[in-house]
């Protein structure tokens, strides 16, 4: 599959389309949504909290923020890694950890009255524990809160460190996610050199073993040059690692520096991939052009409880 250069082109029904396909357009917010966004932004600012919605310029921010939900990003705004599809700034946080962050997060969650909280973090290769202790503290803080909120933790690989993984697994998250991001062949080219396809599978397997009560989740970004056969291989390997839930979405170039979109998948292709994933045996599957790893995360969980 050719990777196009510059402004992306895609072939649809034999026509070359130089713009984003219609299904990737997002409605600008209504006045009510604008109000919800303002409330959320004020609370984030007051408690000095960061969201991945901001750093990754997520197209769903309007919808999620309008409904007063967000994915909180712990451990700062600078990531020590530089994956080529990601918009989060890379840098050296210099070993600094804000230990007050979990308490502020808990206060913000209480104030927002969130029943479902999604947490993620930047990678912190500058820390000996890769940030695992703070992440675990943040999860446990919310689980011990008055709201009895469900927690979904989308975690980094912690460099595969057993102690770090054990600490986070024991913190009581209802869902533990770690994203494989892409297929085996593209992984070394697209992810930071410290990340790895086999490392991610290993980490997912460890969480499966150490957190038997948690739903284990992973996500693939599509449209970066992968083939159908490679997606199938990745799904089988995720299933073998003990993963219960998978999500798939269209890659969108977040910054000029990030790799261009190789291809815009048709909505029907996402449907087909979802069918294949269900056949392989995943308990939950969410696939669509604008699906992100934590998009409508609470819906998936609610459905699980019913079924």
């Amino acid at each position: 599959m050719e990777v196009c250069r510059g402004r992306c082109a895609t072939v649809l029904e034999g026509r070359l389309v130089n713009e984003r396909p219609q299904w990737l357009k997002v409605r600008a917010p209504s006045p009510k949504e604008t109000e919800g966004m303002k409330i959320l932004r004020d609370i984030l600012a007051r408690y000095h909290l960061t969201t991945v919605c901001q750093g990754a310029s997520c197209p769903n921010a309007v919808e999620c923020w309008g409904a007063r939900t967000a994915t909180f990003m712990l451990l700062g705004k600078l990531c020590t890694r530089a994956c080529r599809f990601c918009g989060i700034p890379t840098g050296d946080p210099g070993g600094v950890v804000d230990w007050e962050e979990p308490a502020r997060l808990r206060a913000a969650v209480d104030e927002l009255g969130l029943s479902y909280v999604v947490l993620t973090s930047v990678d912190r290769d500058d820390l000996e524990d890769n940030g695992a202790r703070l992440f675990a503290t943040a999860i446990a803080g919310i689980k011990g809160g008055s709201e009895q909120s469900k927690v979904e933790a989308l975690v980094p690989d912690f460099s595969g460190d057993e102690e770090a993984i054990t600490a986070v697994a024991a913190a009581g998250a209802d869902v533990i996610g770690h994203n494989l991001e892409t297929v085996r062949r593209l992984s070394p080219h697209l992810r930071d050199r410290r990340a790895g396809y086999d490392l991610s599978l290993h980490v997912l397997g460890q969480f499966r073993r150490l957190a038997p009560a948690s739903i284990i989740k992973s996500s693939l970004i599509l449209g970066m040059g992968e083939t159908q056969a490679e997606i199938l291989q990745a799904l089988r390997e995720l299933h073998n690692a003990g993963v219960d839930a998978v999500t798939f979405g269209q890659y969108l170039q977040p910054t000029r520096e990030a790799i261009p979109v190789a291809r815009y998948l048709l909505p029907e292709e996402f449907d087909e991939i979802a069918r294949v994933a269900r056949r392989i045996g995943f308990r939950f599957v969410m696939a669509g052009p604008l699906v992100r790893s934590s998009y409508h995360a609470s819906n998936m969980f609610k459905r699980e409880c019913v079924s």
Partner: protein
Amino acid sequence: MTEVRLPDLGEINEVTVVDWLRQEGETVVAGEELVEVETEKTTFVVEAPQAGKLALIVKKKGDKAQINELLARIS
């Protein structure tokens, strides 16, 4: 006269006007898709806040616009 301003789009500061779906002088209904604007990652469709005639387009195709900036006027 109703002002059409660029709504708050999350953590986005600036967009580029991609296309006007209605032209100056045309009648629009409330909630009708009026203009497409884009960032590096997303295309947003801004709807008409009120019915009327699209009297003036302030930000033309290719222009940059910031949050809350005037895009057009509906009379």
